[in-house]
Structure formats: C-alpha cells, structure tokens
C-alpha cells in the first residue's frame, strides 16, 4: 500500500477513515517526509490537521470537510474539488485547490494562503483575521455565494470572477456584511445591492495593485493562466466603512 523513496512518499488511502489517514500522515511527518502524495482520497476529513512539521501534501481525489483545519505551516495541493471548511482557522501554510471548494472556505483564517481555482460556496473568508505581519489571503478564481467576506476582521480576499460570462454579475449577496477589517478585491461586475451595508467601494490605489499583482501572479503560477490578462480586467476594492459596525446598537 505504501511506497517510499527517501523523503517523498506516496500513499494509497482508498478505504481508510480519517483517523487512519491522519495517523499515517503523522507517522510520515515524524519520519521527516517532505512530500506526501495521497491517492484515492475520498471524503476523509481534517487532512493536514495537527501536523507538527512543514510538509507538502498532494491530494489526488476529493478530500472531505475541514481540509487543513488549524493547519500550521503545511502546504496542500488538491487535484480535485475540496468540500466545506477548507482552511478552517488555519494559522500558516498554503492550500491550493485545482477545482471548486465548498462553504466557509478560509473560516477564521489567521495566516497563510488559500488559492481556489474555481468557485466557492457560502460565507467564504468569514471572520478572517490579521495582526501585523500575519495576514491571511484567500484567492478565488471563480465566483462565490452569499456572505463572502462576512465579519472580516483582517486579511485579503480576492474574487477574480474568471468564469463569469460577459455581462454576468457575481452571484453573491451580502458581500462583506459585518466587515470591520481587511480588504477585498473584486474582478467582475457586482451590483450595489449585493454588498453588505458595512462595505465601502473604492478604486484600487497603487499599493492595492501591488498586493493584488503578487497574489494574481501566484494564482497564475498555480493554475497556469495569464496573469496579465487577469490584471487587465476591472477591479474594485471593498473596504470596511466602520471600525465598529455595530457600535451604535446599544444603550449604555
């Protein structure tokens, strides 16, 4: 079942449950594996959670929910679609999904980068945080469902809209509801009613373009597309209008 060459390991995980799979990952990481390829992944949850050393994990198949939750410095590439909770509360590291991802992608991320080639589900990037240099990024190639960037307190969320047809708007409503930190860059059309009440719209400044270009370049490297063409599209910047969106809710 398991073949190993020095620091590169390939494991066929067909039929294993998540506990067995993660046990194997822990053992391999303890043996100083640097690259692990998992074959026939089918719905196993929490892949990449609780690993103590940096490692690169290639997933062939469909990982289950909470891929890379609480992850701390590992790199995961998925050749397939990811499910809900990808990068849940991740601290450091990188997740690259060559396909779609489900709901709450990047929930409460504290650091690291997530690249999704296609679309994501509801509440992507909810509750992302940042503190000084720790600044998570979520880059979505396609479009997102409602409540993208809800409650964002930090980080960068980029929505590229690459699979939208000419004249087609992003589908999400309530974008950035409750946002009170961080920034979103949106490529593609979006109507004003689709935005949360706490979000402001602005043109990108030079330093915005600098940040954006860096992530778009990375996106293009991962998914082999033309960064220039992506950058030639029209972007808008969404930012939190208030530091305290609900500050006037209460009688003291």
């Amino acid at each position, binding site marked *: 079942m398991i073949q190993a060459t020095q620091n590169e390991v390939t494991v066929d995980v067909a039929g294993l449950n998540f506990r067995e799979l993660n046990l194997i990952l822990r053992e391999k990481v303890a043996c100083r594996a640097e690259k692990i390829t998992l074959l026939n992944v089918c719905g196993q949850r929490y892949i990449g*959670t609780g690993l103590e050393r940096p490692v690169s994990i290639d997933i062939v198949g469909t990982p289950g929910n909470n891929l890379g*939750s*609480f992850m701390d410095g590992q790199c995961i590439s998925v050749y397939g679609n990811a499910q809900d909770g990808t990068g849940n*509360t991740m*601290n450091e590291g990188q997740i690259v999904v060559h396909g779609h991802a489900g709901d*709450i992608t990047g929930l409460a991320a504290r650091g690291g980068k997530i690249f999704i080639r296609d679309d994501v589900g509801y509440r992507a990037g909810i*509750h992302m945080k940042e503190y000084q240099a720790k600044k998570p990024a979520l880059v979505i190639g396609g479009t997102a469902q409602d409540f993208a960037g809800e409650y964002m307190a930090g980080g960068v969320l980029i929505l590229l809209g690459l699979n939208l047809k000419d004249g087609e708007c992003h589908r999400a409503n309530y974008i950035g509801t409750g946002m009170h930190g961080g920034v979103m860059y949106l490529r593609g059309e979006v109507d004003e009613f689709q935005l949360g009440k706490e979000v402001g719209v602005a043109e990108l400044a030079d330093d915005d373009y600098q940040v954006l270009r860096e992530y778009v370049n990375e996106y293009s490297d991962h998914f082999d597309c033309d960064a220039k063409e992506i950058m030639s599209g029209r972007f808008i910047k969404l930012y939190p209008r208030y530091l305290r969106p*609900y500050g006037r809710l*209460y009688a003291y």
Partner: protein
Amino acid sequence: MKTYLPSRFIVERDKDRCIRCQVCVNQCSFDTHYYDCDDDAICASENNCIGCHRCVSFCPTDALTVRQNPLEYKSNYNWTAEAIENIGKQAETGGVLLTGMGNDKGYPIYWDHLVLNASQVTNPSIDPLREPMELTTYLGRKPNEVELDGDGKLVTKLAPQVRIEIPVMFSAMSYGAVSLNVHKSLARAAEQMGTLWNTGEGGLHPDLYQYGDNTIVQTASGRFGVHAGYLDAGRIVEIKIGQGAKPGIGGHLPGEKVSAEVSMTRMIPQGTDALSPAPHHDIYSIEDLAQLVYALKEATNYTKPISVKIAAVHNAAAIASGMVRAGADIIVLDGLRGSTGAAPKVIRDNVGIPIELALASVDTRLRQEGIRNQASVVIAGGIRNSGDVAKAIALGADAVYIGTAALIALGCHVCQQCHTGKCAWGICTTDLALTKRINPDIGARRLANMLRGWSIELKDILGAMGVNALESLRGNRLHLRGVGLTDSELEILGVRMAGS
C-alpha cells in the same frame, strides 16, 4: 437630550469625617466624586453613581454612605421603577439595553429549595478533621467497562482524563472582557488549588502559557486566538456554543475594551468591536458539532478531553444526548443565572432555564440512554457557595464552574456595569489605569482562600452524611429532599419531598 432618569443612588458624605483627601475622586471610574477647589469641598454627581461601593471601601475615614435612591414612583405592581427607567433609557438612546452579570430577576432558586441529608444514630457521620476525605474528581469520558490483566493492571485504554482536587473550576471569562491581571489571578489560584481556569474565547496571553496544565482553552464562534500552540497549551479544549446569560446570541466585545494587547491576542484591529456570531458557521447540526469536536481531537492528537458548553434551554436534555454522541468528553450546562461581561438585558432576563432543572433532566436522560459515563457533566450559572456545589454534585454534576463567585472574591460588588469597561474594581476592564487595581498575587491568594474554605466545607458536608468521597455523593439524589416544591418540580429534579 435632557434625561428624565433619576439618580439611582444617593451619596452621603459626613462633613465632619471627610478630610478632603480625594481618595473617592481618584477611585471612582464613573466620575461621581469631584473636588470643587473654590469651596475646598468634595462633591458628588449622583447621576453617575452606579453603586459599586469602591469609594465607600476606600474612604480612610468612613465618611461615605452610598444607598439606593428611595425615589418612590406612584405604587404600581406592573410598572416598576425598573420598567419605567428602562423605557426612559431607550427613549433617549434608541438602543438595545445592555447589562452585565447574571439574571437578577426573581426566578426560583432551586438550591434554596433542596436540603441535604446527614447521618444520625443508624450510621455514623465522619469527622473530616481526622479522617481522610476525597474530593478528587476526574473529568473525561469513562469506559463502559474496564478489563484487568492477571496482575490487576488496567488493560482497557482510557480516554484522556483530567484530575482536579476540588470540583470547582473557574468559568470562562475572556481576556478583553476581564483584564490580564484577573486571568493571572485565576491561573495562579487554579495552579495552587489543583483545579482549572478557563480562558474564555479571547485567546491566551503569552504570559499565561506557563499555566497550561491548569487551563481550559476555549474556542467560540469568533475563533479569537485559536491556533495549534493555544490548543496544545491547554489541558482541556472547550467549544463554546452558548452561554447562560445570552443563549442563542453571539457576543460583541465593545471596541472600548479592545486595547493593543487584546488586539494582539484576538488578531483584530484595535478599537473595533470583537464580533462573535450567534452560531459557529461550521456548526449547524449535531453532525457538524461532531466535525469540530473531531477536528480539535485531530489537532491535539486525542490527548485532551473536548468539552462542549451550551446554555441550558428547553431541549437541553435531548441536545446533551446529541453532544455526547457527537464525541464531547465533557458537557457544560450554563443556566438561566449564568453571568456575562455584556448581554442584551432582554435576553439575559428572559431566555434559558434554571440550571438545577437542566442538570437534573440532562443527568436523568443520559442515564436512561446508558451514556452518562461517556461524558462528564459540568454546570455553571449562579453557584454561590459550597452548599450549592454539594447539591449540584448530588443532582448529578461532576463539577461546577464559578464565575461571579470568583470575581466577588477578587473584589466585585456585583454592580452590573461590566459592559461599560469602567469597572472601578479593576476586574472587567482593559483600561490600564484600572486593571492595576487587581494585584495578581493578592488576587490569587483571595481566590485560593475561598476555594480552601469551600473545600473544607464540602468535606464537612460529606462527613456529616457519613461518606468519605465525593464520588459517593455524585448523582446520589437520595441525599437530597425538596421543600416548597410542586410535584412536577420534584419529579423533574428526581428528588423526594422533605419528610417523605
């Protein structure tokens, strides 16, 4: 806008005793006392007084008396002073009424309707001064059966267990809601007394990782300060679903309390409100709860019990059963009188059920389903003394959490102004000038003293019953009798009427 609200307190100053030292002026964080240099007199803006008695306690000449304003509205059973003034406040602000601490309404306190048993003639009581008494409690999932090998050694692999020396732990109070010095006091007292304190949902300050063995780390819907190192630091990881003071709603830590250091542990901008959504957006069902429970077990490699805390609500028993089946090793029930640093008053005063009834029904349900051993049950919300603790244990709790009681040990006078961030006792604030008022060495000593007192009292209670271990009292409702309760109340509590 001109306020129609009267002062709630009257500040009386004995002119003969007052030496105009201005201690009251400096101690009051609500700007009640001020010095009038023209008249060389100390005066009071009584409208600002919230009745915390900080000035009274610190006046060196006992010159101050603060008492309730006896303003008597025309007598009306329905329109009480509180009802009138709440509307006045909302008419002036248009906001949700905020409050701090636990429910102060006159709901029945069932502890006061339960009495404990003692040994007389037919079995001997035990003198705990001379005989060994055991309060040690192990929290965590217990196996259905144990298997021993030929040498009497345990073969069964036990789930992680956490040993505490007194069945009283400090309830979750987040860094941000309370100050770092309060956390230090709680952590040190927990370490000294062999019990646990709880970080609450605001993360753990770097200075406190050293107390990890006595720490419960919490993860709530805002996921503030949650990362691998934090989860590793704690002894138990607790998922907070709900809180007794505000079942079903999230939390907003007001921006005034989000200081530079709170911003660091929570990873949100300084001065912004820390927003915890009402639900965890990765938990919409029992199956989803199981997912987070196992995500945390994977993240901690199955070395720590995972606790799940809910507010006691109508269907608590069925929910608790689901929680146990979702993999929770400890379930925490927080009752109607559970406290808070800030909650909408209408929620605090009206939502949830009394903890005594929730505990009894959850314990009964888990026993009926044969899964009571699979999780420890911890309760919170209104525990005032060791008598309440003993009754809770007899009703079926493995341990209790105390929040308000612990803060009172630190100096809290239950003035219910936690949400303002101006706590004059330096507890529920992040204002650096105020937080200095809690000295962690003294705070830890006061907390440890209280726990020591309670532990001696618990041993006295056990001795009087003729049992020498808390385990013999746990879930033993025959040691309780009810007074002044209806048949349905007695039935839910699983307790017989006194005299029967």
